[in-house]
């Protein structure tokens, strides 16, 4: 009897120690979770700390994130201070393998050239990011670069499935490249056009499509626009030709609506990331939908 129990216990202990747990990817934003899924497929488990309708700059460290970060094998975030309000606290409560300097720690901004790096750092200018614009996922080249970084990180974390990650990376690469060509062609007529943005959330996409940013509704980043600034924008728009006022699903609506009312220029809400609109179910569709919406 005791022997049997011992045998069972041994069996359980053995199976626990040898069970190959799938790598667990903790993405700060849905776009990185999408890339992890493209590369990792069924070989990994993923979670995103934020969803497509959330402004990733302002979330609170909630209990469920505290329990998930403990189990993460790979952390993928935008970096450049986008998550500065919550990631440091999470990391201090995370595990060793996702700390800075480890294979499991990937802040994409550390590896790419962010644009709009401010020359003067002073909070009187609003909530500025010394590391530059952190909304890098709207640059398709950065996505492609991230995919290969994710593949190499996953290969190091889980060498057994390395061939699968490489294969997935290869097919993602070719799909993404052809999609990029498609977007370039689709957005051709947009080049040289001007838009007004709410916050500088779309700078990378606008650069890719060669669209000019006339101005932003936010006078100072992170601080709601003043009435005076908005009326200046109305004058500015009247003197030039902007095709739209663009905003994310989480930007406050009132400012854009007011300017649109005064000028007759449409407000367009772009999905911004995966889950940002019902049709934006993956990152391809985020780009597809954004270009379609801008063309309308």
């Amino acid at each position: 009897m005791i022997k049997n129990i011992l045998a069972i216990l041994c069996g359980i202990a053995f199976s626990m120690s040898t069970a190959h747990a799938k790598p667990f990817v903790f993405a700060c934003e849905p776009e990185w979770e999408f890339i992890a899924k493209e590369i990792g497929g069924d070989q990994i488990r993923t979670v995103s700390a934020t969803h497509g309708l959330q402004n990733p700059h302002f979330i609170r460290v909630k209990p469920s994130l505290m329990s998930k970060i403990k189990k993460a094998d790979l952390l993928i975030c935008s970096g450049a201070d986008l998550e500065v309000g919550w990631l440091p606290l999470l990391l201090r409560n995370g595990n060793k393998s996702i700390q800075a300097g480890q294979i499991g720690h990937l802040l994409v901004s550390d590896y790419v050239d962010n644009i709009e790096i401010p020359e003067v750092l002073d909070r009187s200018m609003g909530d500025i990011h010394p590391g530059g614009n952190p909304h890098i996922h709207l640059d398709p080249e950065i996505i492609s670069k991230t995919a290969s970084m994710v593949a190499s990180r996953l290969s190091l974390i889980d060498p057994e499935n390395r061939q699968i990650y490489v294969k997935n990376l290869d097919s993602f690469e070719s799909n993404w490249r052809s999609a990029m060509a498609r977007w370039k062609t689709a957005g051709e007529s947009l080049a040289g056009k001007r838009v007004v943005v709410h916050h500088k959330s779309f700078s990378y996409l606008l650069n890719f499509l060669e669209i000019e940013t006339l101005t932003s509704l936010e006078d100072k980043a992170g601080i709601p626009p003043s009435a005076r600034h908005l009326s200046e924008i109305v004058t500015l728009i009247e003197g030039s030709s902007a095709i739209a006022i663009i905003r994310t699903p989480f930007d406050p609506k009132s400012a854009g609506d007011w300017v649109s009312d005064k000028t007759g220029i449409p407000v367009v809400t772009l999905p911004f990331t995966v889950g940002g609109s019902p049709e934006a179910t993956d990152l391809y569709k985020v780009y597809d939908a954004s270009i379609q919406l801008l063309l309308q």
Partner: protein
Amino acid sequence: MLKNLLRCLVAALGLVLLVPAQAQEDVSQIRQELNELRDLYEQRISDLEKKLEAAVETNAVSQSAAATETQGGRSVRNNSFNPSIGIILNGQAKEFSERAAPEMTGFAVGEEGERGTGGLGLDHTEINFSASIDDKFYGSLTYALVEEGGAIVTEVEEAYVKTLPGAEVAGDLQMTFGKALWSLGYLNEQHAHTDDFVDRPLPYQVYLNGSFNDDGIEISKVLDTELYNEIGVGLFRGSDFPFGTPDGQGIGAHSLFWRVGGDAGVNGTWRFGAYKVDGETGGRATEEGAITFIGDTDLTAYDIRYTYAPTGNESSQELTLTAEHFSRSEVGTYESTVTGETFGPSAYDADTSGYYVAAVYKWMPQARIGVRYAKMKNVDLTGDLDNTAVDGQGFNPSQRTVMLDWTNSEYSRIRLQVGEEERSQGNNDQQVILQYIMSFGAHGAHNY
């Protein structure tokens, strides 16, 4: 009919017999195609492998290389500003209908439990330094400059070291040692500048003199469950409220806590906590040193909190509901040297309690409204302590508060609070307070 069936059968049989010959040809053709495909595929895989190896080599192959490579091409900005320094400026204008600060019936309270006087004045000015000390430790120091009786006093609010995941403490434990805002109820762990109201609710004023930040050590563990589940123990000197004047030997007080929390739907969260701290009090001075308690103190607290942001963005709209309950059981003696109200060390054995409930609603990014109700339950004493400061005298203090605040950015906030406090019978103190809280420098993440 039968003939037809037979014909059918023969045809079927013929077909069956014919197929293998055809199939034989197909199979060899398929096999050949397959071989070609495999060759092609193997070539492709080995190409890809080479590509990956090259990528991995430049990225991070060996662990040693990885350590430097994973820091990327840019300088890590957090290190260039080491340590983080944050300053909180906080000032108030207060108007009370009761000129003289009313006493709290049934409780002897400390400095932070007094209502204080009105007029213009600074509240806590906080200075915080924090940084990762190395791969294993994180340190934080928070000073508060407080005006007490016309002089500026420096208080150490926190000076602690916390182990980082890199310390790999046995059993995946986390340790905090030094002086910290320990795990004891929801508000206790928060710095006062993050509070939703100008003043702390009555139970915090009475039982913790604002907050419990004794010298000590806390060890906790986040359990490996789907829900957030944390258990912990603490060992303290026993020198801070609700204790005082430790004998200077061994452990003066211990604590035990359990916290659990999770998501409530996509955009909601909840958490619940149970806490217990008990210890020996060698002499807790209250009422400006006039009343002293000596004996055993046992404090139990429960907190529950729910947050809901309609779109997931707390920064635009959010509702938070918080409730906490405290109960204190004390056995010992109370002594008073208050002029005209002196009483000798008199035996005391009683349980008191207090709770508060608060709701705060942010209806637009910059504006919030909050309501709070707090009530204390004291005990009517007989004998030596009858009709003294610690006797309930049939009256329980209460507090009703409404606040409205405006937040310009995450760094500045201005708040208007009106309240009504009944600390003692017939003392209906009407309060109007205007407060500003501003911060600059590094601004650490706030606890959930």
